[in-house]
């Protein structure tokens, strides 16, 4: 890719500094009429009347009501399904609590926190039970991390590229600041027997979802989260308490947690055998695919948007994340992967958290395929779809992290394609 088609953000800003606005076409009339702006006639009506009252809990502007989670549930069992974060409509890296993706197996339990108990038992010296109040007294820490469903982007395994907006195909991933008690501390309260190798976690929902987690992860960086972005967890995200296992697939981050049972072996539950396992072409299946491998997604421009001016300068922006650590690098290609240039990473770059990347792009009306490629600090590079399918066959269904391609037509339309 040549220097003049993909520019650094700074160059881009210098060039447009005089125009003063991102879209030149509507910046000029405003400048020309600058005097008029002073006149009372041009005052917007909301400056002529007192504003609205205070509110107990703020809501988004009524002009933003189309920014929603997209629900795809079983129409005959409304509590079984998912809702997708509209990543294409958000900026920065933190997912607002009301837009954090959901995956429920049998609905959102309406838990009375005074009735909820967490039991730690099995291979421990002293089985303990905790109510919410007692947990609130423990020392807490906060950490920002993404949680991604093992089924995110699974339409990618299909032979035809799905025509859904970026978040509605890849938004079973969200990023929040979680605050809670390091699990290591709670397990040590109970006293870990040396034979304990796994922990079976169970949720207090109508699926009583249970799953096995290697104890090392809980002793490393796992949290019993009570707060999400500063406020208590939302019911759909596990109120009153959930596991947060930074970088490990969503189903392990058990919501509505009610039990941690230490065990010498995994329980082989339905959600670690029948589901969340990758069937390979030879008929064997990978099991215990805990880590969400590095992935990236261009959120603008993306399907559902258009490129209005030709030629025009556009900000390519997106998100990258890895369950192995920090994002080290994101490159962008506009020619279907023939050439790549580095995008700018926006700090702070946190471990196992969303990292936003940006790059200015000068489009001159040519047919283009936009792709992003993430590399994490372990050296792992996000694979092409071709390589992923070659390795895993077409029936993996879970754990899809291949490079995502947006086709830009000469008219400035955007489609999702598989390009390689």
């Amino acid at each position, binding site marked *: 890719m040549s220097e003049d088609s993909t520019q650094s953000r700074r160059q881009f800003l210098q060039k447009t500094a005089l125009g003063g606005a991102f879209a030149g076409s509507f910046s000029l009339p405003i400048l020309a009429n600058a005097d008029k702006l002073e006149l009372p006639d041009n005052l917007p009506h909301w400056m002529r009347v007192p504003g609205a009252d205070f509110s107990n809990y703020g809501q988004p502007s009524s002009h933003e009501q189309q920014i929603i989670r997209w629900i795809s549930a079983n129409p005959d069992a409304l509590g079984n399904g*998912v809702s997708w974060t509209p990543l294409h409509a958000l900026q920065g890296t933190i997912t607002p609590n009301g837009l954090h993706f959901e995956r429920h197996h049998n609905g959102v339990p309406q838990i009375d926190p005074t009735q909820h108990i967490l039991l730690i038992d099995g291979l421990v010296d002293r*089985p303990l039970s905790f109510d919410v109040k007692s*947990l609130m007294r423990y020392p807490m820490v906060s950490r920002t991390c993404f949680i991604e469903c093992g089924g995110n982007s699974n339409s990618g395994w299909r032979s035809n*590229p799905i025509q859904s907006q970026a978040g509605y195909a890849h938004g079973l991933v969200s990023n929040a600041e979680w605050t809670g008690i390091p699990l290591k501390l709670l397990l040590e309260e109970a006293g870990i027997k040396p034979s304990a190798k796994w922990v079976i976690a169970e949720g207090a929902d109508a699926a*009583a979802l249970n799953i096995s987690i290697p104890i090392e992860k809980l002793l490393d960086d796992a949290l019993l989260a009570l707060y999400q972005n500063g406020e208590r967890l939302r019911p759909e995200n596990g109120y009153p308490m959930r596991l947060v296992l930074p970088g490990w697939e969503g189903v392990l981050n058990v919501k509505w947690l009610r039990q941690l049972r230490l065990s010498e072996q995994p329980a082989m539950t339905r959600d670690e055998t029948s589901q969340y396992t990758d069937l390979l072409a030879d*008929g064997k299946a990978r099991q215990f695919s805990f880590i969400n491998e590095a992935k990236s997604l261009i959120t603008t421009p993306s399907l559902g948007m258009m490129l209005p001016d030709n030629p025009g300068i556009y900000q390519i922006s997106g998100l990258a994340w890895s369950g192995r650590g920090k994002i080290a690098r994101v490159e962008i290609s506009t020619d279907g992967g023939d050439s790549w240039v580095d995008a700018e990473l926006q700090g702070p770059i946190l471990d196992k958290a969303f990292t936003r990347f940006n790059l200015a792009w000068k489009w001159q009306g040519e047919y283009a395929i936009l792709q992003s*490629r993430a590399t994490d600090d372990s050296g792992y590079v996000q694979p092409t779809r071709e390589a992923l399918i070659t390795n895993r066959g077409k029936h993996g269904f879970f754990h899809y992290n291949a490079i995502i391609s947006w086709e830009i037509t000469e008219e400035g339309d955007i489609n999702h394609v598989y390009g390689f």
Partner: protein
Amino acid sequence: MFNWDNKNVIKSLLLIGLFGFSQAGLTKDTGYYGYGKSATQEEIAAWDIDVRPDGKGLPVGSGSVSYGEELYEAKCALCHGAFGEGEGRWPKLAGGFDTLTDAKPEKTVGSYWPYASTLWDYIHRAMPFTAPQSLSVDETYALTAYVLYLNDIIDDEDFVLSKDNFTEIEMPNKDGFFVDPRPDVKNPACMENCKDPATIKVTSAIKGITPLQHIAKEEGANDKASSDSEDQQPKSADQVAVDNELKVGSAIYSQSCSICHGSGIAGAPKFGDKMAWAPRIKQGVEQLNKHAIEGYSGKTGIMPAKGGNPSLTDAEVSAAILYMIENSQ
């Protein structure tokens, strides 16, 4: 990341600054901080519902295949089908033997699940879907036996499954799993002249739009997507699904939508009018579905929720939209 020195800092703060008693005095029989309670035997028993492959956790009890059949017909067949074939969008429970390497693999209890204990555990905790944890121990043994019978893993109708003989059951795919050795896929991260532009292939969607597939195929639908994802000759599974959808859609359209969309009255985009539909299709299927299901007031007029027919399901409205779109582009 959490810094473990914190704990020592707290310890010394407590020791020096506040209370001044010894560390031994702080360690309670409920742990160092000791804010929890010792769990009672009743609590532990009530929470103890996991069943493992080695049989650990199985309660005393038993149930026969024939009792299981009775229960299954009353409590499960409605969703999972009389033979476990899965009604509509519900998971299939039986069949699919030797299909795991096929173009359309079918993952079921019989063809895919490695352990029978998983079946007992899951039925007991999560099924029937509308009344989880309502089955007794004996009922769970009977239902487990019957689902295994539907899968030809038990072949004797008089068989009685119990705590004692449970671990003798062997599942056909017990050796079908291995611990994921990821990372498995490499990318050399080429920067320049990575490919010959002439050989770059692009796969686009059929007619540029694949509505409903998205909804019909998320993971909650028991992996239907993975089996449907395969191209078939001469018609792909995707195309068959679209065709069925179109049939439903055409009926709904003439009954509930054509009154406005047929002639374009009241500002409704007219059926077949490509110009009128192009910018709307551009918004994406989600947006169209949302507008038609919830209703909205737009630039050209008012689209009533579900065309003013609240008895339509969301899926029926979506099917009608698909039908309109397919004939208007």
